[in-house]
């Protein structure tokens, strides 16, 4: 879950908090200092510098609108960060991706970045268990950008969709690019299927693989509940991906950590 330049006192999704309502003043202060680092970089100033000099001046106006609208949402911690959106856009252009997939949409910032990068007849199969954030926040911006026609949105868990795709051999090796920004405890299940759906030479990007930097914290370090819960899955994921000789790999500290896997065989 990439942190953004959004208000750090934003609450986390209800099911992942131990409280059931608005935090008290003292708790809000604690949360603020906990997410004091809005990025994985040595200072917030450095991250801001990158955003202000290289990212924001080049950000499509519809992406800016979507980013700002998302910042007002209580779950905005889940969004893809602006620097990551720019990076994904570049990757897609570099490989000339046309047929793409996104697992985990939220409001749709990375979805819009992808839609803007693929050609006019490019496609994105987008999956999320919740359609509402995309419909109310993302879709208006995506329509305004003139790229909504590229998106095929499926509401519901991703695994059944992937399994259905695999049932038809024509889908094997048909995708150029996939971005996975979803439930970390299922990443390896997605990976198993994506390795058949992505073409040789195609690219998969797994988001949040540095998990707020918690991958290097000792087990007894103070951590938010949801960070601690998913941390083990992320650690195992990183190990498994690094050992998978079917992919060429690279892990970058963009956003909350993105691991690129290029299918080599």
């Amino acid at each position, binding site marked *: 879950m990439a942190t953004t330049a959004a208000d750090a006192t934003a609450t986390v999704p209800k099911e992942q908090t131990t409280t059931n309502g608005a935090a008290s003043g003292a708790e809000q202060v604690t949360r603020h200092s906990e997410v004091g680092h809005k*990025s994985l*970089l040595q200072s917030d100033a450095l991250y801001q510098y*990158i955003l202000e000099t290289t990212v924001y001046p080049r950000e499509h106006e519809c992406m800016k609108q979507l980013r700002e609208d998302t910042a007002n949402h209580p779950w905005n911690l889940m969004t893809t960060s602006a620097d990551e959106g720019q990076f994904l856009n*570049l990757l897609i252009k570099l490989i000339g991706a046309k047929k793409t997939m996104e697992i985990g949409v939220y409001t749709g910032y990375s979805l819009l970045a992808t839609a803007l990068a693929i050609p006019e007849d490019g496609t994105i199969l987008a999956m999320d268990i919740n359609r509402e954030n995309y419909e109310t926040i993302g879709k208006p911006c995506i329509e305004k950008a003139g790229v909504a026609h590229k998106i095929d949105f499926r509401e519901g868990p991703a695994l059944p969709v992937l399994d259905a795709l695999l049932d038809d051999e024509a889908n094997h090796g048909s995708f150029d690019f996939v971005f996975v920004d979803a439930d970390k405890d299922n990443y390896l299940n997605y990976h198993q299927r994506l390795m058949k759906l992505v073409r040789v030479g195609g690219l998969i990007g797994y988001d949040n693989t*540095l998990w707020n930097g918690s*991958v290097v914290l000792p087990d007894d370090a103070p951590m938010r509940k949801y960070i601690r819960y998913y941390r083990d899955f992320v650690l195992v994921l990183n*190990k498994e991906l690094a050992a998978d000789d079917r992919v*060429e790999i*690279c892990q970058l500290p963009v956003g909350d950590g993105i691991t690129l896997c290029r299918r080599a065989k």
Partner: protein
Amino acid sequence: MAATGAGEGKKAAAGSSLHSKTLLKSEQLYQYILDSTVFPREPDCLRELRIATTTHPMAGMAASPDQVQLFGLLINMLGAKNAIEVGVFTGYSLLATALALPDDGKVVAIDVSRESYDKIGSPVVEKAGMAHKIDFRVGFALPVLDQLVAEDGTSGKFDFAFVDADKANFHHYHERLLRLVRVGGLIAYDNTLWGGSVAAPDDETLSERDRELAQIAREFNAALSGDRRVQVCQLAISDGIMLCCRVA
């Protein structure tokens, strides 16, 4: 990095953040990336050259292991065949590039001196069977690039270029590279975040040299950001890598 005589290795001012090996929030996090994803995949010859380079007094000038892993991936993604490297030093990133290129691929490698390469890199490159891919041109980069531009058939010939040399000339190299690299090709510039000092507050203690180079980096970054001939992306790996995909 090309040797410039005075050398642009990062001699950090006491107390500045330039002492850190990484732009990340902790060295442990950087080490984690290296240990989990980089080193297990590092080819033996590249490891050998990386370790041999540490014996050099200016070892800080070398590219970082995570950076060269990224370049290998980018080269494969691009289907690159022809590359340029401005600034060679011992040849660590040069070897990584050569390994990623196909057997009939070529990298034009430019450095004002080939001493470090001949002494440390070349034997490893030979042993790795990559020497035939390397076209080494000794000289100051600007005249060599101008010569390359003037050669027949070089316009838009190159798929990938990596510049790790004298920062004050980066914008000059950029103009030449935009003619040599194809539309859709990639140029990568190193040290564009200069230890993070590009974002340092005015009262931070920096050496004169770091202050000057941070300013050069800021100006270069601003120029690239405004350059519509390229699509840009700044990565906080190594000392800051600015990726530029030529779009026009």
